[in-house]
């Protein structure tokens, strides 16, 4: 099993979720993160004191999936998250040794 972690622009969430649902993904976990990268931040100015805000709000989406779905899902995320402008984000793929469903104790592919 793999864990797909996508760092994306927050306002793409609805589209991504819909796209993932269409290909059968039934669960995911998201969190608010801040990203630093090629995309420029902005400056805030308070009574002449400058604060440069380098970190931009991003959303981290984590989805655990079966090995055979990796390619399809990466594709779907790229398609639905892309705006073509700098800052669209990254996808990281890591290996999952094991997955458990707490409610039932199920393990592995059934737990996803």
């Amino acid at each position, binding site marked *: 099993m793999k864990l797909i972690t996508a760092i994306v622009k927050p306002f793409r969430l609805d589209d991504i979720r819909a796209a993932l649902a269409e290909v059968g993904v039934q669960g995911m976990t998201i969190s608010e993160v801040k990203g630093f990268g090629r995309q420029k931040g902005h400056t*805030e*100015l*308070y*009574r*002449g*004191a*400058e*604060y440069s805000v380098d970190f931009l709000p991003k959303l981290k989406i984590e989805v655990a999936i079966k090995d055979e779905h990796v390619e399809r899902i990466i594709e779907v995320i790229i398609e639905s998250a892309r705006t073509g402008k700098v800052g669209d984000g990254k996808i990281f793929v890591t290996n999952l040794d094991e997955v458990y469903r707490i409610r039932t104790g199920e393990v592995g592919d059934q737990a996803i």
Partner: protein
Amino acid sequence: MKKILFVPIILGLFPILGSAQDLDTGDTSWMLISTALVLFMTLPGLSLFYAGLVGRRNVLSVLMQCFSIACLMSILWVICGYSLAFGNSVNGYIGDLSLVFLNGISFDSTSGTIPTTVFVMFQMTFAIITPALMVGAFAERMRFSSMLLFTSLWLILIYAPITHWVWGGGWLGDLGFRDFAGGAVVHLTAGSAGLIAAIVMGNRSGFPSNTLPPHNLTMTVTGACMLWVGWFGFNAGSAVGANGGAGMAMLVTHISASLASLTWMFIEWLKYGKPSVLGIVTGMVAGLATITPASGYVGPLGAIVIGISAGAGCFYATQFIKQTLKIDDSLDVFPVHGIGALIGLLLTAIFSSAQYGGVGLDEGGIFSQFSIQVFGSIVTLVWCGALSYILLKIVNSIIPLRVSEDEESKGLDVVLHEEAGYNL
């Protein structure tokens, strides 16, 4: 008309002899509510204004400082502050102790056309907000206990005497010094003492490039709006009656606030490309502080000039203190209140003139009045500045003024008060 405008001073001279005049329910009603309005300026107005500007981890410490100052100054005012400020004058320098613990003030004592109790309360709200204004200068680093000690001594040794000089039948008032609602008494003292405190205590760690940004500007704007509304009690209430003087004071106060706000906003817009909400509300406070000494003396024309001067003058003063002098007056108390008050005190001399729509000047005219205003401002600055410096040094030798660097980085809320502002 003029007589009415000078009522505060007259009251000062004969605060307990006032019973001769009949109580007027309309005036009393206005002074009761003005008192509530000025308290509202500090609690919650100023408290929120300041608290929004600090980092999240210090928000409660600012609220706590303002609140505890309000309580403590009230009690000190009852104990002896009022008597020192408005008791029988000892050679024009200080009130005597005849009114200690409000001795002799009863249900039917009157001062002018209002109950003496109401005059005591109205003046008390000024004694509350003045030290509370200083909180902005030493925010995010002062120890709570030393702050209580410093502000208490400050009220007795600096605020009470200066109030006596100007409003309590003292020598500055006798000289013809014009400070309608507290340019010198309130804003110049708080501003200059704040600056001294900021210098004595040193800059916050991280200043200038790396302090915490304002944690909640919506709170600051809320507080600013309350200050505006409450300031009607402050300035129009200083007419000590519901009359034409109060009406004009309200009008000029409002004009100055509006114009100073817009002035600050447009300067920022031109200079930095974007108008900010913190800018516009800071301009408003500047406009209000600046019109304060003038508010009972000038007409709309004066208010227009004062408003524009306030916006521009305080804007550049803020930049200068922070960027050139690199003094960390955390929330810009001196450039906004101190400089604003100075501008206002001086322009009062000019726009009091009947030819510019003011109430008129004593013989000697603008130039003579201007000299008095300069003199009175310098006296206030010197007394307040020097004594504040000494007090801070004394207090520091008893309890350190400043928390440790480690405590500062953890935030005063948890370190000093064992509480968190938000558990969202």
